[in-house]
Each structure stands twice: as structure tokens, then as C-alpha cells.
């Protein structure tokens, strides 16, 4: 494909890719807002859900928060490296971020396996339905972010498309942000 001239212009002074990521994040805010808003209204309305949420594993959640925060750090460091045109270092840090996403998913799957074995399936009650839906939706975003970063890292290692490092990072920070709110909503509030 020949790259159209349209893709190279930036009238707003902001590269198109980054602009698009901001709009994407805006649209994701309302999607997660829909799930979390619905959850919040039910959660406040049903005090008895506290009993269900007591069975979530706070330590797993806290560890995953740590993992995501750290992967966010490496994403922003990758961006810093990309600014210095250091594609190799950027790629390495992005792979570290992807690793963080991987650890997050592994912890999540161990956690879920335990919960499902204990009988807390998605149909156990509405708390668990929201728990799996919200965390699952977030998990899909983690996977999507990891896949995107693999492509970006592969290009960055060759010193190509370095501006994409920042865009992928922005998206990853957003995924991190969602988890920052999911963690207290699903795990801590008991």
C-alpha cells in the first residue's frame, strides 16, 4: 500500500496516531464506565454483596496492581528511549512491558481457577458476574495491548516507527488506569 499524504499531515500539531489513541481512550472510558457504573449502582444497592466480595483474593489483586504499575513504568521508559531514538532499548523495554502483561494474565488465570473450583463461577451470583465481566473485559484489553506492543517492539528494534512506542504506551497506561479502579472496586471494598 502506498501511504497517502493524508497520513503524514498534522494540522493540530499532534501526530495523527497519538490523536487517535486519545480518541480511542475516550471511547473506552465510556465502555468501562458502562460496566463499572452498572456495577457501582448494584453494589451500593445490594449491601449483601459484601459477603460475596469477601471471597476475592486481595493479595492476588494487589500483586497484579504491582505488576501493571511496573509494566507501565517500563512502557514510559520505552517512550523515553524512543524519544532519544534508541530503538533497541525501546524495544527491550516494550518486551518487558509485554512480559508484565503476561505475568498479569498468569496470576489472573491461577486466581480464577481457584475461584471457579471453589464454586464462585460467573453464574454464582451477580457480584461474581460483574467480577468476571469487568475483569474479563479488562483482560481482553491487556491481551490486545500485548499484541499491539509486539508489533511495535519488532519495528522499534529496527529503528522504525518509533512514534508508535508512545502510542502503544498511552494505551497501556489506560489499561493500567482501568485496573487501578477495578482493584478497589472488586477486591478491597468488602
Amino acid at each position: 500500500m502506498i501511504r497517502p499524504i493524508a497520513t503524514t499531515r498534522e494540522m493540530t500539531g499532534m501526530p495523527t496516531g497519538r490523536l487517535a489513541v486519545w480518541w480511542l481512550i475516550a471511547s473506552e472510558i465510556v465502555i468501562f464506565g458502562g460496566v463499572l457504573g452498572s456495577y457501582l449502582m448494584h453494589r451500593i444497592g445490594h449491601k449483601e454483596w459484601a459477603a460475596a466480595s469477601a471471597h476475592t483474593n486481595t493479595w492476588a489483586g494487589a500483586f497484579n496492581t504491582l505488576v501493571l504499575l511496573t509494566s507501565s513504568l517500563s512502557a514510559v521508559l520505552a517512550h523515553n528511549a524512543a524519544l532519544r531514538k534508541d530503538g533497541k532499548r525501546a524495544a527491550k523495554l516494550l518486551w518487558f512491558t509485554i512480559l508484565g502483561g503476561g505475568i498479569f494474565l498468569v496470576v489472573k488465570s491461577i486466581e480464577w481457577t481457584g475461584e471457579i473450583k471453589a464454586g464462585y463461577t460467573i453464574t454464582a451470583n451477580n457480584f461474581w458476574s460483574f467480577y468476571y465481566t469487568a475483569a474479563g473485559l479488562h483482560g481482553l484489553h491487556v491481551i490486545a495491548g500485548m499484541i499491539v506492543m509486539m508489533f511495535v517492539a519488532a519495528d522499534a528494534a529496527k529503528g522504525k516507527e518509533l512514534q508508535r512506542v508512545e502510542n502503544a504506551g498511552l494505551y497501556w497506561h489506560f489499561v493500567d488506569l482501568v485496573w487501578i479502579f477495578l482493584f478497589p472496586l472488586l477486591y478491597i471494598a468488602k
Partner: protein
Amino acid sequence: MSTAAAHAEHDHAHGHAHHDEGFIKKYLWSTDHKIIAMQYLFTGIFMAFIGGFTVYAFRMQLAFPGMSVPGYGRVTATDYNALVTTHGSVMIFWVAMPVLIAALGNYLIPLMIGCDDMVFPRLNRLSYQLFLLSSIVLIASFYVPGGAFGGAWTSYPPLSAKAEYSLTGLGSSMWLFAVALEFAAFLLGGINFITTVMNSRAPGMKMFDVPIVVWMIIIASILFMASVGPLIAGAVMLLFDQQLGTGFFDPAKGGDPVLWQHLFWFFGHPEVYVVLLPAMGIVAEIITVFSRKKLFAYKTVLYTAIGTGVLSFFVWAHHQFIAGIDPRMANVFSVTTLLISIPVAEMVFVYIGTLYGGSIRLTTPMLWALAFIAEFLLGGVTGIFLGASGADIYFHDTYFVIAHFHYTFFPIAFIGSFAAITYWFPKMFGKMMNETWGKVHFWGTIIPFNAIFIPLFLLGARGDHRRIYDYRHFPDLMKAGMQDLRVFATLALLVLLAFQVVFLVNLFYSIFRGEKASANPWNANTLEWQAPSPPPHGNFPQGLPNVYRGPYEYSHPDRQDDYWPQTEPDAAKS
């Protein structure tokens, strides 16, 4: 990569398309915004056939209950519900949205802002493919056990959530999945539109030099993006309710069916303006060109559009006045609903004001644009009855509502699209459409349209309620004259459907045999008319244009010509 080299490449590819690219690469796998626009347009037209066929089948059943409908067979109660549901969803999500936003947005945005393509051409292709997949899933749902979903386009649970209530377990899920896919397609498309207009306008094109139709599509895309999120979330929850047995909307499991209604209408009402605004934009382009007038108060139009958009987020619960929401909330929503009449009315006043002092040419596109205003007015004022909470108690879920929103949606989805197709046809295909047959089609559509829906207002006022496949069970609804009105509306529908054949013949005949069109047959100002007809890949072979002024400088007193293209430098002032 230099511009010239790129264009040489383009021209080469274009000239030998059949040898170099092949049909699939050129028409099905293309990243060219114009091809993708055509894909959307023709998919939309195809889906309009489905929408038209379903309405034919269920209107026949209403007029002649129990008859075997030619081409369909006997319409059972199950069929009837599936038909009305499909008609509603298809016409809004698979006709109005793809034609007005996706097809016209894709076609017009790069041409009107003077660039060679969208900023994310491959994302654009993906967006269409998702849309195509969603159409296929929807159509396939007719052929699964249990048949297509029949719980109305609003899909209220628990009816939609449980197979034992709806009897269409798989059909419901496929419907929901198709709608969700379609939303994803338009989200991607919307981001593409917004970033393209923000970043890739032609040099010199300031914010207020952007044609109104582009503004409208952008505002609509933002509205869509900001409102659809909760419904996507709701769709996932409803899908889990259907397939996994969760209880998000099941009262017995601590869920709440009213939540879905809110999530749906939080999107559903802005959605009305998502399709209205592009149609309004199309009308602005056409009436200025064919009355040779500057648009009356460009900025007012813009601000009212933004105002409408913002207000549209505050009115959603007027669909639920009697749906079991707290009655005190209805007061708030009744006020906001009536307030939204102000910006919309103002927009119509502005368009009427534009006609003043014009030099009006009643070409086919102009007839459609004027008809839009005339008909939409009736749709607008009848909305007041429904927004006024007291009156809505009686009118809610009657045919009055149906007639009301068809007086808004028909002008939007069909009159607006016909206006756009007839107006931009010379640009799209490089041929002129036949004016005489265009006018025949116009009158053959407008007259039966009114003949269908004015009787429905009367039926609604007399108490006909919606989604009933046979009124013979209701003695009060079989009073003298009522069945006659139903039959009359159905016959008018048949006439309307028959006249669409004229359009199709005209469309395809003109594409292949029409008179050749010049680059700017209407003497219009906007940038797309500076490109050749049809524009080649890359749009502007002379290099991307520069913009010197706003899009509506018609009949400027300093000039001999009654138009002043946006690209013409000031030096050419004579």
C-alpha cells in the same frame, strides 16, 4: 515519497487496474476511501431491500390479516415479531448508519477537506469488513433454529434475555452480536473520521471553512462514540445473560431489567441525532448550491448542532416515561426534551432563511433537500406531543409514535440519502443521473410516504398500539374505519415500494449509460468539485488544493460568476 511520484504510481495503477490489481484487490480489498464508501453504500442499499421486504410482509398482514402474503407466505405471530424487529434494526443500524455516516463520511470527508485519503486507510477497510460481517450475522439469524429475534429493536430483557420467554435463543444472541459488531465498526470509522478532519485538512482550511456536512458527520461521530459505550457494556452483559445464564437483568437473581432500558436509551436517543445531523448537513450543502445563496448564519448552524448534540445526552429517559422509572424523574426529562426543540427548530429556521433572496433551481437533489425540510418539520412538531410527559401517557407505544419517528427517520434515512446520492452522483460515477426519472421517483416516493404515515397518526390517536400482528382481538380497535386506514396505509406502502424500482433503474442505467459529467456540473464551491469526476485514486491529480475561503460564497456581489470555489486564490477576483 514525493507527491508526484505517488500520483504517477496511482495513475498507473488506475489505468491498468484490471491487469495489475484484479477485481478483488481493487473493489473488495481496497483501502481507497471512495471504494470503501461505495462498499458501504451498496451494502446499505442491499440491506434497505431487506428492510423494505420485511415492512412489505408485515404491513400486508396488518391490512389483510391471515392472508398468504405473495412472496412470503402466511405471517405468523412469531414471524411478525421477527419482521418488525428486523425492520427496525436494519433500517437504523444497517441502512441509515452505513449510508449517511459511513458511506458519505468516507466519500466526502477526504474530498471535501482536500486530502487524498483517510488517515488510517487500513483501519477503514477493517471497519467495513466488520460491518459486512455484522450484516451477514444478522441475515444468518433468520436461518437458525427458532428463527430471528423478535423482541423489538430495543431488545428489552427479560424477554430478550431468556430463551424460554422469547423462544429464539440463538436468534437473540446473533442479533445482539451483529449489533455489537456493527458498533465496533462504526467506532473505528468514527475515530478515523475525527482524526482525519482534525489533522489532514487542506492547507488554509480553517475550522469555519469546513463544509457543514463534514462538521455534522464529525459531531455525529463524537456523539456516537460518547454514547455507545454503556450499550456495548450492556450488550456484553445481555449476551452473558442469554448464553451463560448470568442475572444482570434478571430480577430473580438480583438484577434489574430497567438498567438495560437506561443503557439502551442513553445510546438510543443520541443515536437519533447521530443520523439526523449528517442528513441536516447534506441538506445545507444542497440548498446553498441550488439557491445560489450563502448559508444563512454558518456559525449558528454549527452551534445549534453542537447544542443539539450536548442536549441529546440529557433527554434519554423520555423513552421510558411510563416504563417504570420514578415518575419524578420524568419531570426533569420532559423539560430537557422540550428544550431540545429549540436548537433543532433554529436549524430549520436557518435553512428556511437561506432560501430568502435565492435563485432557486428545482433540480432533483434540490427537491429532495426541500422535501427533507418540509417533512422533517412534521416529524419535529409531533415529537412535542411525546416529549410532553402528560400527553405521552396516552401516546406512548401507539402508532402515533411510529408515525412520528418515521416522519423523522424516513426524511433522514431515505430523503436525505436520495438527496445525497442524486447530488453527488456526478462526482461518484462521472455520469449525470436522468432528471426526469429522478423527478418521477421523487413524487412517487413523497406522495405515498405521506399517504402511509398520516393514517398512522390517526390510528395512533385512536388507540392502535404497536407490534400487534392482528387487531381482531381488540374490539375497540376494530371500530368503523380503522381497518380501512390500515389498508390505505399498506396500499400506499406498495406504491412507494414500486416506485423504488424507478430509482434503481435510473441509478444503474445512469452509472453505465448516463451522460458524461463535467468536474463541477452544479457550479459548486466545495473542494470535491475541483477534483475530476470521478476522482482517481489520490483524489487531486493536480496536487492537493489550497483553501482561501469558506464553502458558501455564492453570488458574491464583487464577482461575475455566482460561485467562488474555495480553491480559487483572491487574485482571481474580477
